[in-house]
C-alpha cells in the first residue's frame, strides 16, 4: 500500500515535471475519449438502453410474416411490425404465454390549455399500457383497462412528466381538470413517471390517450374504422412474458393461435386466389422478439449511421492510444537511465510495470475527465444533426449519466492499458550495462520498429477515415444536387390541421380555403396551395387503386402515392405540368372526380403522358368503380426523401377528399422566403388564433432536413478525419523528429563522408515515404471493403470512387509531407563537425 502511494506520488511528480508532455497526452486522449463518450451517449439511448419499466427483459414484441392487403402505419418498419386493433385484442385475450399485452401508436394532436393551443406528440395507448409496463404515477393515477372501453367514451388523458413540468408548471392540481385535445375536452387523470417517455423507443409524447378515442385524436383515421378494421395495421404491440416462459416457448405457443386467427381473417377477404391464400395463411408465422429496448422504426434508420460513427470514433480512439503510446516511448528513451538505475538498485520487474501502468492510468483518467467535459457539447450537436430536432425538443438526451460515465471509465482504462504496454515492453528487458554506460539513452530497435508501425497504422487510419468522409461528402453533394422535380427556392411550408383546433371534418375544407386565401394576400406571397401528402418529410401516403383496362398480376402492387392537393399546387411548387390541366376551384366535391398523375404513373400504364389524358382510374374498394378521370400529367418529383425512388403518384383535388384532414401548406414567395414568415403567422393569427402554424420553414431547410442523415454522417466523418489527420501529423512529426535526432550522428557521418544535403533530406523522407506507401496500400482496399458495409448510406457514389480515394491519398500525402518537412529541414541543417564531436 505504501509503495503504491509512493508510486502514485512519483507518478504525479513525473507528470508535473513535464507539463507539455502531460497536456499533449491529456488533450489527445480527451479528443478520442470525448468523441466516444458523445457517440455512446446517443448509441446507448438509441440501441442499448432498456426501457425504464419493471423487468424490461420480460418485454417482447411479436413480429409476423406473411401476405397482407390493406393499409399500414406510415411510421416505418415493415408491416410485420404492426397489428390491427381486432388482431391485437385477439392475441391479447387468447394467448397463454403473456401476462399482459399492450398496444400503442404515435400521433400528433392539438392540445389547448388555458386557451393556448399547440401541436404536441401524443401516444394512443391501450388501457392496460401502464399496467403491463409496471409503472406508477407521479401524481393522480394512470390509465387502466376501464379507461379504454367504448369508442369515444373515454375522454381521459395522462400527461408525460416532462410535459407536465414544462406546460403545466408541475402543478398537482391539474389532476381532474380538463384540457382540449383537438378541441374536445379530456380530463387529466395523472402524470407518468419521471424517467419514462414511451414504450416506443426514442419517442417523447406529451400525452397518453386511450386507443378507444382514436377517432377524436386521429380524425383522419375515422374512415378506416380502425377499432374494427382487420386490414388497417397501425398498432405497435408489446407483451410481457409470463414468469418462466421464454421467448422461444412463447413463439411455439403463439404459432397455432396466430394461424387460427389468420384463417379467420382470410374469410374477410372477398376474393382469394390460391396463391394469396398460400402466402397469407400457409406461409405465415410469428416470431417473438426481444423488446427490452422498445420498438422504434426511427432506431432502424439511426442504427447504421450510429454504428458507422461509433466505428469511426473507435478508430479515432485507437489512433489516440497509438499516439500516446508513441509519445510514451519517446519519453521512455529519455527515462532509460532512470529505469535501468531502478533495476540496478534491485527493483522488481512487477514494481517497474506497476509504476508505468499507474502513470498510464493517471493520464487515461485525466484524459477521460477532459473528454467528459467535451462530450455533452458533441453529443448535443450529434443528437440535433441526426434527428433533425429543434433545440429543446431533442428526442435523446445529451447529458452524461452513470452509464456514459461507466463506459468512459472503462474506455479510459482499456486505452490506458493499451498505451501503457508500449513503455512496459520497452523497459521489461533493459540492457543495463549498455544503458548505464551511455550518456543519453537510445531507443531500442524494437521501440523504433513500434514507432514506425504506429505511424504506418496512423497513416492508414487517416486514409480510411478520409476515404469514408469523402464518400459521405459525395453522398451529401449528390443528394443535395440532384433535381427534385420542383423549385425549392423561395418556397415556404408549414403544416396546418384545423381538426387539431376543434374544427369538424365538414368545416375543414372551408378553413383550409380561407387560410390559403388569407395567405395569398400576404405581401410577397405569390401563390398559396396545400397538400395532404407533404414533400420530403420522410412519410408517404399510399392508397390502393385500380386502373381501367389493366389487370394486375398477383405480384404487382397497385398501391400508389396518394396526394390530395388544392388548386394552384403545381404552380406553387413549380412542378411542371406536362399535359392537361391543374385542378381548379371547379373541381369541387360535387363535380366529376378527376386526378392528375405523375409521369411515372402515365408511362407505366399508358406508355406516355399524352396517352394518359382522359383515362379512368378508381380507388381500390369493394365497388371496383373506375370513376376518376385523369385530366393532367405532372412531372416526377422526389417525394418521401431525397434517397427514395420516385413512385407512381395520383394527385386528387383536396375538395373531393371524402374525409378532409390537415394539410401541408406551400407558399411561393417573390423574395427571400424568410422575410415573409412574420406576415404568414400574423395572417393565420388574424384568421383564427387557435389555428397552429406548425413547423414553419423554407423548402431549402426542408431539403437540408431530408438529407440530415447524410449531412450528419458527412459532418461528423469530416470532423473525425480532421482529428485523425492532426493526430497522425503530430505522431508522424514526433517520430520523425525523434528519429532525426537519433540519427544526427549518422547524418553527420554521411555528410562527412560526402553525402549531399539533398540526399540527407531524401534519407529522412524516404523512410516516411516507404511507411506511407505501405500504409496506403493497406488502407485503400480496407476502405473499399469497409465502405461495402455501409453501402446503404451512400448515394450516387461507388465504394471505390476513384476521385474520393485519390483525394484521401492526396490529402494524406500533403499531411505526411508537412509533418516531415521540419524534421527533414533539421536533418539537412546538421553540422557534421558538431554531430561528430562526441569524443
Amino acid at each position: 500500500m505504501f509503495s503504491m502511494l509512493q508510486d502514485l506520488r512519483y507518478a504525479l511528480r513525473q507528470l508535473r515535471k513535464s507539463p507539455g508532455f502531460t497536456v499533449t497526452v491529456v488533450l489527445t486522449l480527451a479528443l478520442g475519449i470525448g468523441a466516444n463518450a458523445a457517440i455512446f451517449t446517443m448509441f446507448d439511448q438509441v440501441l442499448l438502453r432498456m426501457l425504464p419499466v419493471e423487468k424490461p427483459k420480460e418485454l417482447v414484441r411479436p413480429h409476423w410474416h406473411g401476405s397482407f392487403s390493406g393499409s399500414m402505419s406510415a411510421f416505418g418498419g415493415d408491416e410485420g411490425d404492426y397489428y390491427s386493433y381486432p388482431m391485437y385484442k385477439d392475441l391479447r385475450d387468447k394467448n397463454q404465454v403473456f401476462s399482459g399485452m399492450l398496444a400503442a401508436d404515435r400521433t400528433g394532436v392539438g392540445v389547448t390549455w388555458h386557451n393556448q393551443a399547440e401541436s404536441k406528440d401524443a401516444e394512443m395507448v391501450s388501457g392496460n399500457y401502464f399496467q403491463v409496463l409496471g409503472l406508477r404515477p407521479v401524481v393522480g393515477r394512470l390509465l387502466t383497462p376501464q379507461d379504454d372501453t367504448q369508442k369515444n367514451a373515454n375522454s381521459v388523458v395522462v400527461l408525460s412528466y416532462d410535459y407536465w413540468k414544462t406546460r403545466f408548471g408541475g402543478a398537482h392540481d391539474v389532476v381532474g381538470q380538463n384540457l382540449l385535445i383537438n378541441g374536445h375536452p379530456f380530463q387529466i387523470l395523472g402524470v407518468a413517471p419521471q424517467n419514462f417517455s414511451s414504450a416506443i423507443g426514442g419517442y417523447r409524447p406529451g400525452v397518453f390517450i386511450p386507443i378507444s378515442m382514436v377517432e377524436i385524436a386521429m380524425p383522419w383515421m375515422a374512415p378506416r374504422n380502425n377499432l374494427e378494421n382487420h386490414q388497417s395495421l397501425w398498432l405497435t404491440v408489446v407483451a410481457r412474458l409470463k414468469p418462466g416462459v421464454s421467448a422461444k416457448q412463447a413463439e411455439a405457443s403463439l404459432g397455432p393461435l396466430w394461424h387460427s386467427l389468420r384463417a379467420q381473417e382470410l374469410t374477410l377477404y372477398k376474393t382469394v386466389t390460391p396463391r394469396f391464400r398460400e402466402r397469407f395463411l400457409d406461409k405465415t408465422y410469428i416470431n417473438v422478439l426481444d423488446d427490452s429496448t422498445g420498438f422504434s422504426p426511427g432506431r432502424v434508420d439511426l442504427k447504421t449511421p450510429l454504428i458507422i460513427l461509433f466505428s469511426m470514433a473507435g478508430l479515432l480512439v485507437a489512433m489516440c492510444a497509438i499516439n500516446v503510446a508513441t509519445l510514451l516511448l519517446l519519453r521512455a528513451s529519455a527515462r532509460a537511465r532512470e529505469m535501468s538505475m531502478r533495476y540496478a538498485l534491485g527493483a522488481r520487474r512487477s514494481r517497474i510495470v506497476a509504476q508505468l501502468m499507474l502513470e498510464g492510468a493517471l493520464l487515461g483518467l485525466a484524459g477521460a475527465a477532459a473528454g467528459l467535459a467535451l462530450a455533452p457539447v458533441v453529443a448535443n450537436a450529434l443528437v440535433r444533426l441526426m434527428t433533425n430536432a429543434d433545440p429543446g425538443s431533442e428526442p435523446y438526451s445529451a447529458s452524461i449519466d452513470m452509464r456514459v460515465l461507466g463506459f468512459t471509465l472503462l474506455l479510459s482504462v482499456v486505452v490506458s492499458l493499451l498505451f501503457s504496454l508500449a513503455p512496459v515492453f520497452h523497459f521489461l528487458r533493459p540492457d543495463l550495462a549498455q544503458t548505464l554506460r551511455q550518456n543519453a539513452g537510445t531507443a531500442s530497435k524494437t521501440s523504433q520498429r513500434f514507432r514506425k508501425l504506429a505511424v504506418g497504422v496512423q497513416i492508414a487510419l487517416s486514409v480510411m477515415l478520409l476515404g469514408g468522409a469523402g464518400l459521405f461528402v459525395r453522398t451529401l453533394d449528390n443528394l443535395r444536387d440532384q433535381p427534385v422535380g420542383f423549385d425549392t427556392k423561395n418556397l415556404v411550408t408549414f403544416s396546418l390541421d384545423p381538426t387539431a383546433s376543434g374544427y369538424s371534418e365538414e368545416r375543414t375544407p372551408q378553413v383550409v380555403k380561407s387560410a390559403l386565401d388569407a395567405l395569398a394576400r400576404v405581401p410577397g406571397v405569390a401563390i398559396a396551395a396545400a397538400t395532404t401528402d407533404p414533400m420530403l418529410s420522410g412519410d408517404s401516403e399510399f392508397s390502393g387503386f385500380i386502373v381501367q383496362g389493366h389487370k394486375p398480376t398477383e405480384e404487382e402492387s397497385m398501391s400508389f402515392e396518394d396526394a390530395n392537393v388544392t388548386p394552384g399546387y403545381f404552380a406553387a411548387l413549380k412542378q411542371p405540368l406536362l399535359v392537361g390541366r391543374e385542378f381548379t376551384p371547379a373541381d369541387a366535391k360535387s363535380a366529376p372526380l378527376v386526378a392528375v398523375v405523375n409521369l411515372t404513373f402515365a408511362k407505366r400504364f399508358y406508355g406516355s403522358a399524352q396517352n394518359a389524358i382522359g383515362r379512368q382510374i378508381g380507388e381500390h374498394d369493394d365497388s371496383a368503380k373506375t370513376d376518376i378521370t385523369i385530366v393532367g400529367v405532372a412531372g416526377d418529383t422526389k417525394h418521401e426523401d431525397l434517397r427514395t425512388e420516385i413512385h407512381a403518384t395520383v394527385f386528387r383535388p383536396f375538395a373531393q377528399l371524402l374525409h378532409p384532414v390537415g394539410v401541408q401548406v406551400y407558399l411561393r414567395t417573390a423574395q427571400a422566403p424568410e422575410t415573409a414568415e412574420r406576415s404568414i403567422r400574423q395572417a393565420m393569427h388574424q384568421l383564427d388564433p387557435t389555428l397552429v402554424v406548425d413547423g414553419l420553414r423554407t423548402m431549402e431547410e426542408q431539403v437540408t432536413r431530408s438529407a440530415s442523415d447524410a449531412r450528419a454522417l458527412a459532418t461528423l466523418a469530416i470532423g473525425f478525419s480532421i482529428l485523425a489527420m492532426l493526430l497522425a501529423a503530430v505522431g508522424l512529426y514526433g517520430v520523425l523528429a525523434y528519429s532525426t535526432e537519433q540519427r544526427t550522428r549518422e547524418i553527420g557521418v554521411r555528410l562527412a563522408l560526402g553525402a549531399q544535403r539533398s540526399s540527407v533530406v531524401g534519407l529522412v523522407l524516404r523512410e516516411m515515404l516507404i511507411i506511407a506507401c505501405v500504409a496506403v496500400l493497406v488502407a485503400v482496399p480496407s476502405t473499399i471493403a469497409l465502405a461495402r458495409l455501409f453501402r446503404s448510406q451512400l448515394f450516387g457514389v461507388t465504394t471505390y470512387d476513384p476521385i474520393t480515394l485519390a483525394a484521401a491519398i492526396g490529402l494524406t500525402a500533403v499531411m505526411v509531407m508537412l509533418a516531415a518537412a521540419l524534421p527533414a529541414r533539421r536533418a539537412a541543417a546538421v553540422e557534421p563537425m558538431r554531430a561528430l564531436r562526441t569524443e
Partner: protein
Amino acid sequence: MIELKNVERSYKTGHTETWVLRRIGLTIREGEFVTVMGPSGAGKSSLLNVLALLDDSWLGEYWFGETPVHSLNRKQRADLARQRIGMVFQSYHLLDDLTVAENIDLPLSYKNLPAKTRQGMVADILDRFQIVAKKDLFPNQLSGGQQQLVGIARAVVHAPALLLADEPTGNLHSTQAREIMELFRELNRQGTTIVQVTHSDENSRYGKRILELHDGWLTRDEAVDAPVATEAK
C-alpha cells in the same frame, strides 16, 4: 599540397569570442605524415575540421593544391572533400544498420560511380585490409580494432589524396593501436598524405613531422626525431 595562411577560427558565446585557432600558417607537402598534438582545447580538432572542410566558418587562406578553398562556396568545398579527402574518427562512426561492406561503400555511393565499379573497389579494399570474411557482419559484431580497421578502409576506399584521422586509436588498446598505426604508415608509404591528431607520443612517432598547438597558436613544427621502427611482419 596544403597551405594555410593566417587561418583563424573563433566561437561566439554571448558577448565573448573564444579563439580556437590563431593565425595558423602551415604547409603540408604531398606524401607527408603529420601529427598534430597539444593539450585538450588547444585547437587540434578544430584544425582538423578546417582541413577536412567540415568547418566553413574560418578566416584566412586555405590552398588545397592549386585550389583556393577560401574562395569556394559550401557546395564546391563539399565536392572537393568528397573527391580528395578521407576521414577516420576516434569513435569509428560506422553506421550500425549497415554491414561492413555497405559501410565501406558509403563514400563511393556519394560519388555517383557505377555499382559494378563500386563493388570492385569495395572488394579490393576488403582484400587489402584482409577483412573479406567480415564483409557481411554488422559493426556491433566486431571488436573496436576491427571497427576502426573498417573505418580506415571506408576512409581510403576512394583513394583520397589526404587522409585525416582524429584520435584514430583513442578507443583502442595498445596492440590494436599499434596495428592501426602500422596501417597508416603503410598507407603513407603508398603515397597517401596523412594528418592525424593524437595525444599519444608513441603514435606521433609513426609520422614524420609533429605540429603542436597551444591555445590555438601553432607553437611547434618539427620533424620526428625518433620514428617507430617498422614491425617485422
